[in-house]
């Protein structure tokens, strides 16, 4: 019998970066097929191809043995492919019924909404959800909203159901409930694809699992016949030897984060009593799958957002979690954010200005009346040389013209110019090639040698493992485990991919 959904040799790049490198995938009707991998492995991208959102550069898609071409999400729907995304596509102020009606249009509103309500109630009772079709989406919990997405897709007649990281937003109990329902759907004949990074879910509920790493498909197994270790190793890769370094001397605590909480605008709690401390001359790495509060933690540390409660205590300064700008500046925290052009650089302004901005207020570059442009240029030229920023024809050129690696070096040049005591680095080598990556790592280690306390938040487990003296694993907004160097990769991998 032909597979319900078959993807062969899919290639896809975005702006020159290869996201899918000849990946393949095959799932059958009546089974729950898990797609397992770390962040950036390509799982969501592959399924977005199947759902018609991305057009692949190469490769083929077949449904029940028949090759098809998908021109968009509507075409995918016609082929009975339904995808529940990580970021729900729901209109918040509308009711459940209105959202389902929008996605499954009927000729008339009044009769349409009645039909849809009936269809919803039928699905809801079969799936044993408890959704009131007349409730507004913005009054519902995330778990309930997800149920709405599933119902929406099933009312539309989906026979191939793709769920993208469905349990990422759920509590353990909710997750179990959802996966049991999903299993039942599969038994009734639907082909279910479960995109996930959670090993436990795979072992408990999946009939078969395809593992992806680096845009490629690396294995296809029966999870019930494989051990957790085997699966983990395939997912996160081999342990490699760690570079030598001087052992950590143990200095005074420079940064103490205590019970930090933060609730996002849409109500979701992203930081839930995050607590950790970092000592002088130490690199504290925070590992974890993205979406567990790392971004919010980084933003709170650098001052982009204000936490709801808790403290960020700095040696010699005090609690800066809700401090004024002046106090923060005094604290001289070096910030290397993940998104360079959002928080660290003004792309349309010259390199020299981007370097100088942190020290303008101190008067280093002239008074209020007249800036000392010569000094700005001079310092910029020195910094460019010292930090080996390539591609700079003149320090007056726009910062956006620099390549990723050089832009990052620029950020580091500026942030380190004041010899900071505390460094917050969030995904510092994202998007960088090997050489640039090495340069960034070298800078961080040098800062460590000088006695700075460094917080390194990264989704790249290799980076965290090779640089950190201590590692904290972040999951669901809290640090759930700490490991000392040399850390056991498998243990960390399990804590990362497995929590819950």
């Amino acid at each position, binding site marked *: 019998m032909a597979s319900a959904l078959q993807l062969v040799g899919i290639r896809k790049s975005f*702006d020159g970066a290869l996201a899918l490198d000849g990946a393949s995938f095959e799932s059958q009707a009546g089974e729950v097929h898990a797609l397992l991998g770390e962040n950036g492995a390509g799982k969501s991208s592959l399924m977005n191809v199947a759902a018609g959102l991305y057009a692949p550069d190469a490769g083929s898609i077949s449904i029940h043995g028949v090759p098809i071409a998908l021109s968009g999400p509507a075409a995918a729907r016609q082929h009975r492919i339904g995808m529940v995304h990580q970021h729900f596509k729901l209109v918040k102020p509308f009711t459940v019924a209105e959202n389902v009606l929008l996605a499954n249009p009927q000729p008339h509103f009044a009769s349409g909404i009645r039909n849809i309500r009936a269809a919803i109630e039928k699905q809801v009772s079969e799936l044993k959800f408890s959704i009131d079709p007349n409730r507004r989406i913005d009054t519902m919990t995330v778990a309930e909203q997800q149920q709405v997405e599933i119902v929406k897709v099933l009312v539309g007649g989906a026979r191939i159901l793709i769920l993208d990281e469905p349990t990422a937003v759920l509590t353990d109990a909710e997750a179990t409930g959802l996966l049991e329902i999903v299993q039942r759907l599969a038994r009734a004949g639907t082909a279910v694809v479960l995109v996930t990074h959670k090993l436990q879910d795979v072992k408990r509920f999946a009939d078969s699992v395809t593992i992806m790493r680096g845009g490629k498909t690396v294995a296809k197994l029966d999870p019930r016949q494989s051990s957790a270790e085997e699966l983990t190793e395939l997912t996160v890769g081999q342990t490699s030897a760690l570079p030598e370094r001087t052992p950590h001397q143990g200095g005074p605590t420079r940064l103490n984060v205590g019970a930090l909480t933060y609730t996002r605008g849409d109500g979701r709690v992203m930081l839930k009593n995050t607590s950790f401390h970092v000592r002088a001359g130490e690199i504290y790495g925070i590992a974890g799958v993205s979406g567990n509060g790392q971004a919010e933690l980084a933003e709170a540390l*650098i*001052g*982009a957002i204000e936490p709801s409660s808790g403290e960020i205590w700095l040696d010699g300064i005090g609690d800066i979690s809700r401090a004024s*700008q002046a106090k*923060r*500046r005094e604290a001289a925290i070096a*910030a290397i954010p993940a998104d360079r*052009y*959002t*928080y*660290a*650089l*003004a*792309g*349309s*302004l010259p390199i020299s*200005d981007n370097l100088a*901005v*942190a020290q*303008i*207020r101190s008067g280093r570059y*002239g*008074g*209020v*009346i*007249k*800036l000392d442009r010569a000094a700005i240029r001079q310092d910029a030229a020195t910094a460019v040389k010292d930090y080996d920023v390539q591609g700079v024809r003149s320090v007056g050129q726009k910062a*956006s013209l620099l390549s990723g690696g050089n832009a990052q070096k620029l950020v580091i040049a500026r942030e380190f110019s004041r010899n900071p005591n505390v460094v917050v680095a969030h995904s510092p080598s994202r998007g960088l090639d090997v050489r640039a990556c090495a340069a960034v790592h070298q800078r961080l280690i040098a800062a460590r040698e000088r006695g700075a306390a460094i917080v390194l938040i990264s989704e790249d487990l290799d980076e965290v493992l090779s640089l950190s003296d201590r590692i904290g694993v972040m999951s669901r907004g809290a640090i759930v485990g700490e490991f000392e160097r040399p850390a056991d990769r498998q243990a960390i991998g399990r804590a990362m991919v497995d929590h819950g």
Partner: protein
Amino acid sequence: MRQDLSPWKQAAFVGASLIFGLAISIAILAAAGIPPLTLASELAGVLTAENLRGVLVQAAPLILVGLGASLAFRIGFWNLGIEGQMIFGGIFAAAISIYDVGPQATRLLLMGSAAALGGALWVLLVVFLKNRFRVNEIIATLLLNYVAMYFLFHLLYGAWQDAKTAFPQSSPLRPFERLRDIGFGINSGLLIAIAGVLAAGWLIHLSRIGFYTRFISANPRMAKIVGVPVQTATVWIIAASGACCGLAGFVNVASQEGRLTQSYANGYVFSGVLIAFLSRNDPIVIAVVGFLIAVLFITGQTLQVFYQIPFTMVQMIEAIIVMAVASSEFLIRHRIRWLR
């Protein structure tokens, strides 16, 4: 990753769109009964030596208003209260005259300062409302234009009305309170405008606050994190914007009119928007565009006097130009995608 079209090609697009916009304006005017040849001859007439003086006098307030608008827009504040700020600038300056404040020698300086203060206060009112009550400044500044206008009428028909004439205007300013010509037909009002251009140049290129402004404009989130005093800088810049508009009002009252009148602020809101929009906040370009709009204004006034064409035609042409140039940006962006 991001390929900018070369500056020359971009300028070509903008230039082409300008010509397109002007062509449409001429077409509309022709349809309204003004043959293009008449238009051309009037325009030529404006550019003669004797009419040039009038253009330069008209250029002064336009340049000031363009500076004021561009200061505010750069920092993300839609200051559309240009006319209201001009009105209060004129009122504050006239108050100095009416209440005979200060010695002769410094009278003009006092009036100018008062005008700047008046304009700044009128816009800072909106800044306060925006910060405290999240009032939308687009609507608030526009509505306050009407309030300012009626306040002006209230004064001109009431307490400040010139007893000698029956018209809604104040008593004439004393000779030492006038902005006079300083030779070559150039009015000292233009000097104020040039001083404004220089000050704007200093602000943008040399001063510390100009440095801050560029970061606030380019990336406000980063500016805050990196230690730029966003709040303070923003308030000062907007105040400066209001002050420029206030000065424009003073220039109009003290040079041409010679007294406080009803209509010295008419037509400046969109002119300010246009000048700021076209000049991308470069003070020199503002001066040039201001001069060109002054030509447009004088032409419009001539057409009004001799052909009974309402002065609002000028605003129509300004609007067409802005729409045409704004549309060209879309084409520039789109071309980049096709070229890839």
